[in-house]
């Protein structure tokens, strides 16, 4: 697992063009559906949760919040497939590093 994660970090460094597919899919989903509130590339969260601060060890909390909604955020579980939410988690935790 650690080797895979390391490979992801390395792959992220040069930018989207060389990102692995799940990360790229997460980035695209984020840009379409999440960035209007959480900010382009998570840079400008304004009133929404600052995802750069989301604890990296709380994947389940992330999946639950996206699926069922949290505070002002509506539920997304009926339109996003589990693997899409996983790709979002990958993007949120890895996508803008490096």
């Amino acid at each position, binding site marked *: 697992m650690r080797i895979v994660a390391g490979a992801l970090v390395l792959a992220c460094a040069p930018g989207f063009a060389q990102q692995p597919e799940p990360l790229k899919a997460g980035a695209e989903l984020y840009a379409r559906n999440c960035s209007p509130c959480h900010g382009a590339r998570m840079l400008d969260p304004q*009133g929404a949760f600052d995802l750069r601060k989301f604890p990296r060890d709380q994947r389940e909390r992330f999946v639950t919040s996206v699926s069922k909604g949290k505070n002002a955020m509506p*539920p997304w579980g009926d339109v996003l497939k589990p693997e899409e939410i996983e790709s979002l988690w990958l993007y949120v935790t890895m996508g803008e590093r490096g």
Partner: protein
Amino acid sequence: MRVVFAAAILSGATAVCAQSLDDLKNDGRNTDNILTYGMGYHQQRYSRLSQIDRKSVRRLVPVWSLSLDNNWGEQAQPIVYNGVMYVTNARHTVAIDVATGKQIWKHTLEWPPETPRVVCCGVSNKGAAIYNGRVYRTTLDAHVIALDAKDGKELWRTKVAEWKDGVSLTLAPLIANGVLVIGNSGAEYGVRGFIDGIDPETGKRLWRRYTIPARGEKGNETWPQDNNAWEVGGGSAWITGSYDPQLDLMFWGTGNPAPWASQSRPGDNLYTSSVLAMRPKTGEIVWHYQFTPNDAYDYDACWELINADLKIDGKDRKVLMQLNRNGFVYVLDRASGSLISARPYAKVNWASAVDPDTGRPVESDIAKSIRAGKPTEMWPSTRGGKNWMHASFNPQTGLLYAATLHEGRMYKHLEIKPHVVGQRYMYIENLPLPRAAGEPIGHIDAINPLTGEKKWRVPLTDFQVWSATLSTGGGLVFTGKETGEFIALDAETGKQLWQFQTGSGINAMPVTYTHKGRQYVTVLSGIGGLYWNIAREQLQNVPQGGSVWTFALMPD
């Protein structure tokens, strides 16, 4: 015979007890009532009432407050009829006794918890319409409902669209020439905007006018003919239109095209970012004027299109005025749609001017840079030189009074991906710019509509104001702050004369009226809407919670 006689009595009773189309036309003359959105079909948000004036306003005190049991935010304009106030938010419709502040009835809506997913800019509702003993409102999940004004009983419910397709409704309906008219929200989700005429008696749709013409219809040639951009092209009409009963024309502003990035839709993209002059009985478009052709900036034209009579070059002109999101204040001839003037009222860098001959903006190198997909400092930002918070027009001073925005953003078009039904369709990056210390982020302005010049401006350095203004014959301008203060300014100078701290933030529309000869002012408090989405962190010490606040002068 007896049947006919009884029917005549019933019909007579209705005419006495429920306001008619004539009452709606004359809204403002009887100061006991507020029957239309904008305090008159003209949407001037002006009352001649002057008991509360520059001197007496210091004695203005709250006389009652009522909880609205709602945390989603309050944006609505109250309606007042025969001593009863009707207030809406996303959850409830409430009837209130004006004299006591006591709730008479409450109607509660249920909508799926997923619905806010298709609401870009705040879960709210902007108010009700009243006609013939019924209260009408729209719902977040794209229905229109009719309630009995007496008891709140639901009389009919019409599904306008499928919310999962990205359509929501937050506006107050317009009753014009006996037709209930609404428009939709949803351009951020790639819906095709429409304006519907509905029979107020039955809820049956009488006509639908899409704001984007179909293939073969006039105007569709302004969209690409080799893709389906027009079908997902936005142009939602999310604010109530104004209406001129003499011309029998209603004026609806339309929103931005979709997506915000413009590469997929070369052409003017009619009728997005435009005003449509329409017949209420048929939805026929009599004339149109497009403020921002091929809008690449989210410059909706939805909000108040104020009708007024102005003397211009010695001639009386029937005009239509708008502080457009694109930073220019437009004055049009409302019979013909011809341009009279368009001058900047805010910092604008995407266009250098509006060409007086063609009526089209002269786009700058900034616009070229944005269209080339480069990150570009853009003024005004996508939120505009002004947003929905309605201006008022005082015919005594000839000035528009409005909360305006002073904000640029680093804006960039992204590659456009295929449209997914019910999901965002914008494809831009929109990042903040560094700001000099002390530079205002907005103003409260008194603006000459023909020149854009400010008679005065109140700079705002902490929070923008996202409330409508109310102008009065007492020489006052009322508005509210996101930090909760309801304030009165001197219309001549902008000096703040009075304030009262309500229980939450104000992002709504104050009104004034009389009851038993006494002038009242009412505003809703309850933080919500787009600005709360933006500045929630900074406003963390402003609690949520909706309420109605009503004020009157303390006796001497």
